[in-house]
């Protein structure tokens, strides 16, 4: 029977998951109540404003921030770009270098490349085999003169390894360098680190709609808007915010925060099952990422002699949606910089990321079909018994 990855086989939540029911309800209601310009003083505008303020207060509380520290952007990537460019601008007199980890989201590394193009520089701190950044190297880089800002993810979006944010934050504080924490992989899944000067996140990772990012800047941090002047979002993000989408994002975050411990415990156990079973069921597999200090819902493994594209389409035909960091799946035909920096196998790569509504049965069925899909690809490639 030919299936395509249906609702139960969706295991790519880290790329974006279906709207949480609470978000869907909030979105529909907000199209009636929150459509007007929140900057206008008539009744409909004031109503939009109240709704936007309530959403901001709710998201701020979840992130451990003050409401006036939180601005909404059009995506997580836009939030990171504004965070990096604004800190670089605010710290221009201190330096023009970004220090960051080697396995950051590509939007952080691209923001660093933009600094390089503008005459600045970027230093990427290496990671170990689990993807954890080298704290001592990080501290050495931070202590060098000319550093404008540091950026570190809360946890890795491809392999799930949690980063030592607290230790890097201490080193950054000692060096007087502001720290951007990219918390996109963690928000809505685990507790959020408190040691940050600027924090970014993305709503579609926690069951909110796409098109909503979060830029939180602590009071007193030297951040200067890199955009032309615009009074919206406290002067931090130009343009009329999508109030209904922001409300839906806040509703989703409240809903998943309320159940976070239960959801995390369930995902942690299911990922542990995948981590344990895959090497037993499939020969020649490398399960990567930190087995303990990890996000609840992400697990990545690579199958020797298997090409990633065949794996993605083979699993899709078997009813499962997963993503892959293998080169053949990428537009540029280069492997995931995360896997490369970790020094692990890059071909035959599978990232499973569990949505909140994943079922135990779906995970078991995935473990049931995976060995056959891998075996078929290896047979077709003549890569059996090697």
């Amino acid at each position, binding site marked *: 029977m030919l299936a395509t990855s249906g609702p139960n086989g969706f295991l790519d939540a880290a790329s974006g998951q279906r709207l949480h029911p609470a978000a869907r309800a909030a979105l529909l209601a907000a199209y009636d109540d929150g459509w007007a310009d929140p900057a206008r003083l008539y009744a409909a505008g004031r109503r939009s404003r109240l709704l936007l303020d309530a959403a901001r207060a709710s998201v701020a509380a979840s992130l451990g921030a003050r409401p006036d520290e939180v601005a909404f952007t059009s995506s997580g990537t836009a939030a990171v770009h504004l965070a990096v460019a604004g800190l670089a601008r605010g710290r221009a007199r201190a330096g023009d270098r970004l220090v960051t980890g080697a396995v950051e989201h590509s939007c952080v590394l691209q923001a660093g490349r933009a600094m390089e193009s503008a005459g600045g520089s970027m230093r990427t701190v290496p990671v170990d085999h689990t993807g954890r950044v080298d704290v001592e190297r990080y501290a050495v880089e931070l202590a060098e003169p000319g550093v404008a800002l540091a950026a570190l993810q809360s946890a890795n979006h491809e392999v799930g390894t949690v980063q030592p944010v607290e230790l890097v934050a201490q080193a950054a504080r000692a060096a007087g360098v502001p720290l951007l924490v990219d918390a996109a992989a963690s928000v809505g899944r685990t507790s959020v680190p408190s040691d940050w000067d600027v924090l970014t996140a993305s709503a579609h990772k926690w069951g909110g709609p796409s098109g909503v990012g979060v830029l939180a800047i602590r009071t007193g941090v030297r951040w200067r808007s890199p955009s032309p002047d615009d009074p919206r979002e406290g002067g931090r993000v130009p343009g009329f915010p999508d109030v209904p989408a922001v409300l839906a994002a806040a509703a989703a975050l409240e809903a998943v925060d309320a159940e976070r411990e239960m959801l995390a415990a369930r995902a942690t156990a299911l990922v542990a099952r995948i981590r344990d079973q895959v090497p037993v069921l499939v020969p020649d597999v490398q399960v990567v990422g930190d087995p303990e200090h990890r996000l609840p819902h992400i697990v990545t493994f690579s199958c020797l002699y298997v090409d990633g594209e065949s794996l993605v389409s083979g699993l899709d035909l078997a009813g499962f949606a997963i993503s892959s960091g293998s080169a053949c799946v990428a537009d540029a035909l280069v*492997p995931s910089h995360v896997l490369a920096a970790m020094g692990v196998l890059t071909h035959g790569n599978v990232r499973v990321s569990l949505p909140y509504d994943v079922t135990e049965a779906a995970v078991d069925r995935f473990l049931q079909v995976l060995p056959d899909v891998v075996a078929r690809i290896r047979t077709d490639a003549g890569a059996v018994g090697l």
Partner: protein
Amino acid sequence: MYGSGRLGSGSHRTDEGCAVSDLVIDERGRLCPLPVIALGRAARDLPPGSVIELLADDPAAAYDVPAWCQLRGHDLLEADLGRFLVRLRAPEPS
């Protein structure tokens, strides 16, 4: 590691101490995992201690050849500019 003394038996060295391969595999222009599959086939067919020279220009090979060596316990003698020199794991000493 070129000529660093990690190169094993004398049969794989010239007088200058350079490694000489028993087999050259040219996988240039082919994408991963094909170069690694070719290595796997060669490893199956050659005796332990043999040295294989792999030419592979796929960027992924730079990561996947070392990872394969690690998984299989073979020695990666050199890895440089799309050229890899692998010595197959010697049999366990009796």
